[in-house]
């Protein structure tokens, strides 16, 4: 295992992902992440000079639609996905910027 994930890193990733991990979970996550990075490192064994970075597996481009309204009011169904609802709005924990 070439990659080692530090405690600080796993702590930071936890904050970014809004996850609270206990000690056992942290240890497991550290190992999983290191394994993933090792796997990615295999790319380093290949000669990638002059190869453009790829963001998509398929060779598809220019998928777009015309500017025409196709969706009608479906609030009743959309709001069913809300954890809580009031006056047609999604209820969330109090949040200020």
């Amino acid at each position: 295992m070439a990659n080692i994930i530090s405690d600080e890193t796993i702590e930071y990733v936890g904050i970014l992902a809004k996850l609270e991990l206990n000690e056992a979970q942290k240890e497991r996550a550290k190992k999983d992440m290191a394994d993933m990075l090792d796997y990615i490192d295999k790319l380093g064994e290949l000669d990638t000079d002059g190869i453009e970075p790829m963001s998509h597996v398929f060779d598809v481009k220019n998928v777009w639609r015309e500017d025409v309204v196709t969706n009608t009011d479906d609030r009743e169904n959309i709001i069913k996905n809300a954890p809580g609802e009031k006056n047609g709005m999604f209820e969330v924990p109090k949040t200020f910027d």
Partner: protein
Amino acid sequence: MSAYETVIGLEVHVELATKTKIFCGCSTQFGGEPNTHTCPVCTGMPGSLPVLNKQVLKYAVAVGLATNCDITRYCKFDRKNYFYPDNPQNYQISQLYLPICRNGHVDIETEDGTKSIGIHEIHMEEDAGKLIHDEYDDCSYVDFNRSGVPLIEIVSEPDLRSADEVIAYLEKLKMTIQYLGASDCKLQEGSMRADVNLSVRPVGQKEFGTRTEMKNLNSFKAIRRAIEGERERQIDMIESGQKVVQETRRWDDNAGDSYAMRSKEDAQDYRYFPDPDLVPISLSDEFIADIKAAEPEFREAKKTRYTSEFSLPEYDTDIITGSKRMADVFEETVKFGADPKKVSNYLMGETMRILKEKELDPQDITFSSASLAKLIKLQESKAINGTVAKEVFEVMFFEDIDPEEYVKEKGLMTVNDEGALRAVVEEVIKNNTQSVSDYKNGKEKAIGFLVGQTMKAMKGKADPASVNAMLKELL
């Protein structure tokens, strides 16, 4: 105190005037009931797939071309990750690596002549939803109607040096984008938003000082005050030996002060990466050439043409071309055969007065050019006098009336019956002996009073010039 130079760069968000959102077929119309313009895509439901609105791309390219940018032929979208309840996907779809436009500039007029302001890039992205806070409940509420509304963000180089330059730059962008029809660019309503990045440095110093970013600026006045306030604050800090901290500050225009929102300690780590749900965009020369060919006549060109074609003074052309809508009304009304200077007078005078009084934007003008042309003709042919014309215009401004019919219906036509006028004038002369003798004794102004009395007796439906002539004849 040593002299300081202010260095400013702007991030300007502009809401595009598309009918639908950037990645779904929901309406962008303003003012709907909460969440009535939403779908699984713009509420970030798992499994939903975004599809790009072609019109967003066209508008972004049009703005890029008009601001002298290089158009990125091969571009794509990236995810900007952050948690906030108004952002249902937990990422905003934006462009980091290959923004649609780069390396542009716009020219602004300053006291020292023309200055070129660099545009670093323009990228396409989606707007967030709206958070509503309840004072009493321990909850916030989200309306996703704005979520997914298309935006472009125009990032300038740090080339601006004063509030005047910032406002000139914003005006220039606003005019350009309005003329393209890509947005109405209303600061008050948030369809144009400017974040100000500002730092100060001693004059002559090459390196930039530490900058702050100021948000929540929704009028040119607020922008000016915020820039002046932040400049003072930073200079005070430096002068008193403190260090300016890199942070985001929120401007409170009522208090005339700003406060820190986020400091560097909890600086965001957005972990940008290419959005795998959206395929890359590859633009052909044709695509770009078509947009270039459809470019409208911009403000500067219009001003020059109005001067040469209609002999309008610069003062007039400045006001008329100050909004695309007003320039359109002007041109259409002239096409209906109205005298250009008279049209211009209506736009600069009555129209601007009503707009100001009702706190409306010139873009809100709804009266028809045909009606304005008719009204001007009615006045020209002396069928109605100036006072009546103004009254009719005011009605016409808010209601869809035909001025000719309205004047007939309400009996507002000028009385052109000379006999009737003569009788009234004779009566006025008889009843106002004091003014008559004043006039005869050389008080020229006394005639004004007599004209007024005659107009009153005629219920305003006389032509003041005819009344004047008749009075002079009979005195």
